[in-house]
């Protein structure tokens, strides 16, 4: 099933290797482990393609030493070992990579899919850059690179990638929405609203785009407009997307509506402690009795469960909140809505929920 279209692709790959006789891997000597680790990964992948598999393994070894959670490097090393006939040695790397990716907490299910991507995505960026050697009239590699950069917290670079994609596919509603997400992440909320609005003009009921614009409106202080978009998003979300529906209703502070959605979500994902936590929150906001819940293990969000059970003080909970996000979660559970509304990032569920609680 060789496809004629891929003939060109194959030739482009040959051209790239020929051009790249002495390729440069910026950051290979960088003292920063992240930069050096990713550069080693890229060189390892290059060596894999060039047939220098043993040398590639060395690069991946070093990258993993520097960045033990580097799942992409583990999979690449596993593939090399597998190729060398060392399938048993490869197995732990395959397993560990999957464990690392699965352990990452992803973005809320009501937001754009780009916030739910896991890993460094360096393999993907490298692959799409390779594809761009041939694909001159396709927007896909640009937007895919943009998405990876967004996942890395590099919205300014992502914006450039999306704009390159938009040059190829002018006014494309999906690309406009991605641009809106990049602008929003950069704090350029007015421009973000414009980009989302342009996208929604073409596809008015796109749930994730409505969510993006709602977040940007909320950040601009227009919680009324944000709520309108969230309501529209809720009506556009199918029943089976209970998790997304739960998130939207929580942003709206609509706890009566949130409760059944949360219960359906828990049925599907009983091991995710956040859904249990949000259910406790909903019950509390509705003044309903709360039955005891098994607190999860680990350092977070266990303290929040302890708080609900009356086994932790506000001080201990805040002390355990070691990141900005956790602190916002803690403040929300402590019902310090004003603090949350003033300091939380607008994309957090707690931010919108706090704003709506304050507006009551």
């Amino acid at each position, binding site marked *: 099933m060789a*496809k004629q279209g891929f003939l060109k692709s194959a030739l482009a790959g040959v051209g790239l290797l020929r051009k790249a006789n002495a390729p440069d891997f910026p950051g290979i000597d960088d003292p920063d482990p992240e930069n050096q680790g990713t550069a080693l990964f890229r060189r390892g992948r290059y060596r894999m393609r060039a047939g220098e598999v043993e040398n590639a393994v060395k690069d991946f070894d070093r990258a993993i030493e520097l960045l033990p959670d580097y799942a992409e490097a583990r999979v690449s090393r596993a593939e090399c070992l597998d190729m060398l006939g060392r399938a048993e040695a490869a197995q732990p790397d395959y397993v560990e990579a999957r464990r690392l990716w699965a352990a990452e907490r992803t973005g809320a299910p009501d937001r754009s899919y780009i916030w739910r991507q896991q*890993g460094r995505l360096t393999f*993907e960026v490298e692959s799409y850059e390779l594809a761009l050697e041939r694909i001159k009239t*396709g927007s*896909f590699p640009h937007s*895919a690179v943009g*998405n990876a950069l967004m996942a890395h917290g590099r919205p300014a670079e992502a914006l450039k990638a999306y704009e390159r994609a938009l040059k190829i596919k002018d006014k*494309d509603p999906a690309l406009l929405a991605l641009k809106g997400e990049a602008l929003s992440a950069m704090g350029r909320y007015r421009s973000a609203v414009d980009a989302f609005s342009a996208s929604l003009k073409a596809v008015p*009921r*796109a749930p994730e785009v409505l969510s993006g614009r709602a977040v940007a409106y909320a950040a601009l202080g227009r919680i009324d407009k944000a709520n309108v978009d969230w309501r529209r998003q809720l009506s556009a979300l199918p029943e089976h997307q209970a998790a997304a529906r739960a998130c939207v209703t929580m942003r709206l502070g609509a706890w009566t509506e949130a409760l059944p959605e949360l219960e359906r979500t828990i049925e599907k994902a009983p091991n995710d402690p956040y859904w249990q936590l949000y259910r406790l929150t909903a019950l509390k906001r509705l003044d309903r009795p709360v039955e005891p819940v098994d607190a999860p293990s680990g350092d977070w969000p266990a303290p929040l469960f302890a708080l609900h059970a009356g086994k932790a003080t506000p001080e201990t909970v805040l002390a355990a909140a070691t990141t900005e996000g956790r602190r916002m979660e803690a403040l929300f559970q402590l019902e310090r809505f004003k603090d949350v509304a003033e300091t939380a990032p607008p994309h957090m569920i707690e931010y919108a929920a706090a704003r709506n609680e304050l507006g009551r």
Partner: protein
Amino acid sequence: MFSVIIYGRNDQHGYNLHKRAAISFNALAEVMSDPDDEILFVDYNTPDDHPTFPEAIADTLTDKAKQHMRILRVRPEQHVHLKSKTHLVALESQSRNVALRRSNPKNRWILYTNTDMLLVPRTEGESLSDILGALPDGFYQIPRFEIPEMLWEAAFDRKDAAGNLAKLRDWSVRFHLNQVVHNFMPMKYDALGDFQAVLREDMFAVHGFDESMILGWHCDSNLAARLALYRGRVDTLMDKAFGYHCDHTRVAAANNKGRKTTMNSHDKYIWNVSSPYIPEQAETWGWPDVKIEEVRLDRDTSYERYVAGLSQAIEPATVPFTNTSVEWHLFDDLTYDLRHTLPFVCDQVLTYPKSTSILVAGCRADFIQRFATAWRGMGFTGPVLVPQEVGLGVDDPAIKGGRFGDLLKRADLFMFEFGLTTQKIDDPVRVGREESLADRRQLKAVERLFRRAASTEAETRPKGRQTPRRCIGVNVIYNRYWPVFTDYISANINPFCAQVLAGIPLAEPVTMKEKVILKFKKKKAS
């Protein structure tokens, strides 16, 4: 744990399809270990008078394959709205989406593959259900390895799935079969459509396959591009399983015309994909409101239905054989052996939907009576429509009477029987019997209804129906109703012994005038 989704139709798609598919179905079932696992085969646009493809090869499938397989039959009438837009007779996106919509909601994974693939877990004894059950959420592909045609054709035993997988383990080493063909992202490997494991939930979220892709090819790459956006990554499952493809290039498949192959746009559907979603089909993908028939191979099979119907309608023979004759002087004798003919008649209807309404106009009351009994026994729920103009006074729970003009508009299928109304079940057959006045009157009435039905078929179709309705003729071979029937119906030449012809009405009936002109032309030419 997982639903395998594959599609095809009862035709000849590439070299030795029957063997390839049997090997593949059996091998897929072999690596299933969860009772919820299923092989969803969408039988797309097989002609109504044919069985589905898996039914046609059921004898070559293992019990395990039959137990896990659910056949979803998409009828030609359900495809007809797309017919003018594509040169293809089976559509991948529509098929796969019809199956996805109807897949077992208990299953976490959907596995997209094709009917010529064998999946071999790298750890012997491990099932694909075990492998997928232990996997975190994601989008997984594996590379495809080729099996030379000679190997699978000559050395595989269709029903020995475990033995075939063991052979592959051996051949992969002996014949260096395992070559990974890498590809540009998002198509991690070449021929990626032969193994894409996706969360069922993800497939629903992205609205399934793109149903605007109706020209063939790249549906798999489009899905990969969209899921690569959605998930961010395409993961490999190469450490757990290898996929082997039964190479079939001796004969090009219908959708492969070399460099002249018509395809979906590569640029539009891969390199310019900008969203995982397809909002324009969000509500309609997989035809949620269309009733799709489900066929099983492990219960309520066509054969079981056939036996059940006939055993209610006819009793077993009491003599070793009976006689009839095609001798010339018997051309006008319209007697026939009903008990012998009925099995061939039932054979004509069994592949139709159970809800079919069949209009039956005949000369012999015992024919209509026994056919109605068999019809019910075969599990049909639609009525047997008998026009009051036939006037035989037959009573049966399946029979609904009415004016011929009204029944024409309700029928999905026609049957006209040309026998002698005076013939009794044990009367001798083809011994030179003369027609009585009553016979002649009845034959005339049925012939008139037949001509009307056949010549107005297009105008009298039930509302919304676009495909022509099939017409079955009983006792229309080698007697004077042979030319009458074939003047109107495009029927094949069938053996006399079967007594039955069938086909769809000709756009223009062959008239006597045309026949004369043709004869004249031929004479002139010679």
